[in-house]
């Protein structure tokens, strides 16, 4: 390693033109790969192919119908949906929604199939709103009466008080061109909203549903990229200008950043990684880390130039000092990001891989391209003594003086923060993945607060025999389960075949309320079901509710928005109820996106635990070999682990909720914060070994040489990750914030805890070193 480092700088300068040309060729190649990047519009990407909740959900969708939807929520300003004008609007919107691309069914109070008996022999099946143009007050009163009593409609397509109403469109995407189908549906729906809001100024229309949510994922990924990347470039430009005050350095760093991003995203494109919400933060993270690498080279370069070295000598020296730590830092950062491959959620794997590629690229650009280009550009030394050097010297003395106090007091703070970690509660509310500035979130919140909910659990209530759903015993169990759900405080709506059977029984007995009950024999139920099946309108079939051999029905439960823990708890309550009350029919779990998202955080933490541990072991082994000292390598575990613990402690105090994205933060930050340790320890050991310095002197030396750079890179990293807090996705903004906290903690822990600890641990070694060395300035 040593030989390489010594000759590396000379080699780079000798071959600089070749390096520059090769770099440009490679970047061009990588750039062409960005053409392959696609934005994904499907929440399912968050789940790995073998995720058990996804498999259960796929199974449900295969057995029954797939249920992506668009929901229009109409809120008349007078607070009453039952007016001639609003009913007219609902009717028209229902008709026009059939034109939405890939729509297969439209449901509203307007086309609700209202069945009623006339006399003994006639059963009428008709749209609830037949002719809105000539509707009378008594018609409206009748429609209101029917709608507000219909369990299938209330809190589903009409609010219980009748103040808002919905038009729900079932969408069945062919899945041929996934990146355009969902936006097509959304665009068409938005145009409908605009058109209707113009024609009906007294009605506000909100747009939500799974199809719209899917679109929001893609759309906001794009928005994030187009707004946050320029923002971080701008921020970094300002930072660099202030910090380096050198045009050449800033310009070259910008190229390194740009090239690194192109490398990460372009190679990722070749490898087929998609752009999803989480992976939109990859360019910003690459940018941030690439700057950190460049800053190390630039800072040493400046120090050397200041010390009077000529440009070539300064470049050679900067590379000699930095090559190993930058290589180690990049390697460990890559390992940290690659540990995201253990994540249960593919978008985080993509994020890790994009970033790892970009970071690897930044290593080569910072150590080859940057010095090669800098050697061609004019650079001059600054006159004044860097303030930072003096400041660092004083800081080093202060730490050495107060090492005991620092060790115990900072140690105590760390312990307190660790104790706060359990205050974090697992929670993934997928609607809240979107910030409150996103229209989808606004509309969905309105819908959840006024009409129905987006938290839905589906059960395939199994009878375990073909045609078994007609069995009265089964139907009564189904009815009881339905009633149990209706009695839960969190419930919004239950859709169950039990209601349909009871209604038909009543209809077939001249609408006599006494017959609103489950039919008492199997044949009758089966025949009602046949009747029901034959009366269904276009676009609906029994398969929505009943599987093909009629051995099971789907019961759909809509709940208010709640935390993952509460959702899993209520599902457990349902399972317990089934076991106790209907043991014959109890062998099925609830499923659906809300259940999938409720489990994803926990699954991710479990899978990332393995990934993070492996990354930690790998990084520690690398450090032991790099530092050629098991003791130092093992000791470095402490500053590598403590910052994440501190970060989560602070998070527990500030926020208290962790979800999907925060489970990957530990692995991700591990690779970044190790860099602090690497730079600090490599300088420390260089002083100890090359200059025979004692512990104190080595601490001084490492703080003065690398302290300013660490401070600056930490500031850059913190700011870079803080840019992510402006993301429209909560998983990005929370990840950015927590990562920023952890990086800040890493610096604090390194300076104020790890150095005192190191001094304590190496106290004994000091005796072996002669005292004359103590105050001699390190000459490296």
């Amino acid at each position, binding site marked *: 390693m040593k030989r390489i480092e010594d000759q590396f700088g000379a080699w780079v300068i000798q071959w600089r033109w070749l390096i520059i040309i090769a770099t440009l060729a490679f970047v061009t190649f990588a750039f062409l790969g960005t053409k392959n990047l696609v934005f994904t519009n499907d929440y399912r990407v968050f789940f790995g192919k073998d995720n058990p909740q996804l498999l259960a959900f796929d199974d449900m969708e295969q057995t029954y119908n797939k249920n992506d939807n668009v929901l229009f929520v109409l809120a008349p300003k007078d607070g009453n949906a039952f007016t001639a004008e609003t009913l007219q609007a609902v009717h028209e919107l229902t008709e026009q929604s059939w*034109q939405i691309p890939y729509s297969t069914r439209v449901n509203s109070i307007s086309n609700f199939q209202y069945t009623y008996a006339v006399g003994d022999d006639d059963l009428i099946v008709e749209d609830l709103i037949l002719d809105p143009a000539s509707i009378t007050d008594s018609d409206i009163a009748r429609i209101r009466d029917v709608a507000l009593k219909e369990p299938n409609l209330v809190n589903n397509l009409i609010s219980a008080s009748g103040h808002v109403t919905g038009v729900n469109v079932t969408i069945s995407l062919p899945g041929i061109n996934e990146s355009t189908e969902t936006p097509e549906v959304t665009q068409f729906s938005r145009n409908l909203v605009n058109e209707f809001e113009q024609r009906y100024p007294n009605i506000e229309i909100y747009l939500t549903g799974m199809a719209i949510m899917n679109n929001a994922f893609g759309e906001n990924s794009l928005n994030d990229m187009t707004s946050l990347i320029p923002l971080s470039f701008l921020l970094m430009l300002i930072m660099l200008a202030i910090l380096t005050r050198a045009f050449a350095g800033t310009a070259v760093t910008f190229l390194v950043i740009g090239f690194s991003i192109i490398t990460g995203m372009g190679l990722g494109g070749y490898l087929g990684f998609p752009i999803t919400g989480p992976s939109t933060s990859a360019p910003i993270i690459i940018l941030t880390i690439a700057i950190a690498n460049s800053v190390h080279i630039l800072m040493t370069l400046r120090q050397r130039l200041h010390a009077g070295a000529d440009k070539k000598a300064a470049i050679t020296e900067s590379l000699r000092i930095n090559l190993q730590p930058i290589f180690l830092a990049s390697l460990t950062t890559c390992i940290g990001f690659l540990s995201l491959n253990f994540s249960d959620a593919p978008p985080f794997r993509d994020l890790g891989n994009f970033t790892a590629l970009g970071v690897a690229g930044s290593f080569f650009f910072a150590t080859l391209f940057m010095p090669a280009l800098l050697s061609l550009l004019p650079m001059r030394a600054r006159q004044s003594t860097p303030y930072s050097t003096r400041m660092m010297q004083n800081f080093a003395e202060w730490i050495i003086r107060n090492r005991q106090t620092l060790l115990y007091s900072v140690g105590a703070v760390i312990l307190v923060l660790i104790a706060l970690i359990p205050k974090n509660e697992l929670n993934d509310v997928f609607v809240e993945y979107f910030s409150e500035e996103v229209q989808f979130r606004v509309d969905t919140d309105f819908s959840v607060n006024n009409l129905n909910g987006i938290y839905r659990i589906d059960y395939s209530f199994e009878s375990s025999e073909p045609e078994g759903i007609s069995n009265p015993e089964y139907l009564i169990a189904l009815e009881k389960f339905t009633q149990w759900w209706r009695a839960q405080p969190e419930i919004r709506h239950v859709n169950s075949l039990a209601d349909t059977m009871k209604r038909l029984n009543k209809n077939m007995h001249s609408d006599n309320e006494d017959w609103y009950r489950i039919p008492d024999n199997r044949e009758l139920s089966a025949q009602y079901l046949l009747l029901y099946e034959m009366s269904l309108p276009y676009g609906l079939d029994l398969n929505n509710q009943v599987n093909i051999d009629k051995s099971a029905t789907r019961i759909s439960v809509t709940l208010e928005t709640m935390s993952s823990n509460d959702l899993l708890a209520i599902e457990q309550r349902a399972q317990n109820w089934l076991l106790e009350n209907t043991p014959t029919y109890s062998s099925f779990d609830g499923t659906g996106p809300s259940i999938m998202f409720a489990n994803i955080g926990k699954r991710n933490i479990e899978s990332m635990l393995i990934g993070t541990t492996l990354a930690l072991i790998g990084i520690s082994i690398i450090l032991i070999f790099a530092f050629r000292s098991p003791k130092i390598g093992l000791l470095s575990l402490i500053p590598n682990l403590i910052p994440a613990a501190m970060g989560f402690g602070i998070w527990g105090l500030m926020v208290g909720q962790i979800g999907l994205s925060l489970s990957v933060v530990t692995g991700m930050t591990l690779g970044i914060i190790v860099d602090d340790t690497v730079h600090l320890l490599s300088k420390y050991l260089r002083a100890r070994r090359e200059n025979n310095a004692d512990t104190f002197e080595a601490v001084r030396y490492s703080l003065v040489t690398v302290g300013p750079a660490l401070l600056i890179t930490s500031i850059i990293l913190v700011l870079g990750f803080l840019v992510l807090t402006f993301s429209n996705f909560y998983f990005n903004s929370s990840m950015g914030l927590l990562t920023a906290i952890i990086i800040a903690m890493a610096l604090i822990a390194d300076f104020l805890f790890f150095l005192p600890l190191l001094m304590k641990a190496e106290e004994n070694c000091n005796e072996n070193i002669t005292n004359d060395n103590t105050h001699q300035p390190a000459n490296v």
Partner: protein
Amino acid sequence: MKTLLTITLTSLLTFNIAFAQTPEERGLEIAIESDKRDTGFADQLAEMLMTLRNAAGKESIRKVRVKTLEVSGDGDKSISIFDQPRDVKGTALLSYTHSTKPDDQWLFLPALKRVKRIASRNKSGPFMGSEFSFEDITSFEVDKYTYKYLRDEEVEGKATFVIEQFPTYQASGYTRRIVWVDQEIYQPLKVEFFDRKNSLLKTLTFHDYQQYLDQYWRADRQEMVNHQSKKSTTLLFNNYQFKTGLTDRDFDQNSLKRAR
């Protein structure tokens, strides 16, 4: 002499029409010919085996007997009697179909021992849970559609007329159908259905046509595939019988109870 003249005139007329015809007239002409060739069977009995298949390929089977009475100037009358599944055995549906207004339907539920009239304008809902809708399964009547001849085309080695048909019934689930009519037997070989937004919804194909009474062609097998839901239905027919002497009295509400 008079006959000869008529023939000459007619053929001259036909000749003229063939050249001066609009696509609409040509389409209508083919429809009229199809209808004419299938007229006069009086009544028909058949056993139908229905296989429903969901997107995952799981199947379920229904057995139905269908009796049809030819009605001139209106849609036919029919009774469908379920034999399978067991729980619905004996359930029977009587329908008087109409081209441009809602059908009349009565349902007999043996477990309830009652006949109920079902009033619904809906003809586009699924027929017995299959991918066929009521409007797909009912008899072909000329005034059910307006027509537009598109082109000639070969389908599996057979020459066909390709005709676009537009439903005349207001509440139809389709904007249009495209039908491939066998030029030899004037029966459809393939039908494509387009939904309300004019997207391809389903394709129906007819297989193994047999001729009965030297005139009437019936397909032994029909395959309907729904492209949007990926579900499909196969209809297998056998034991076709014609002119069995059924009358209006076999297609009234009382007959429904006795239908089993």
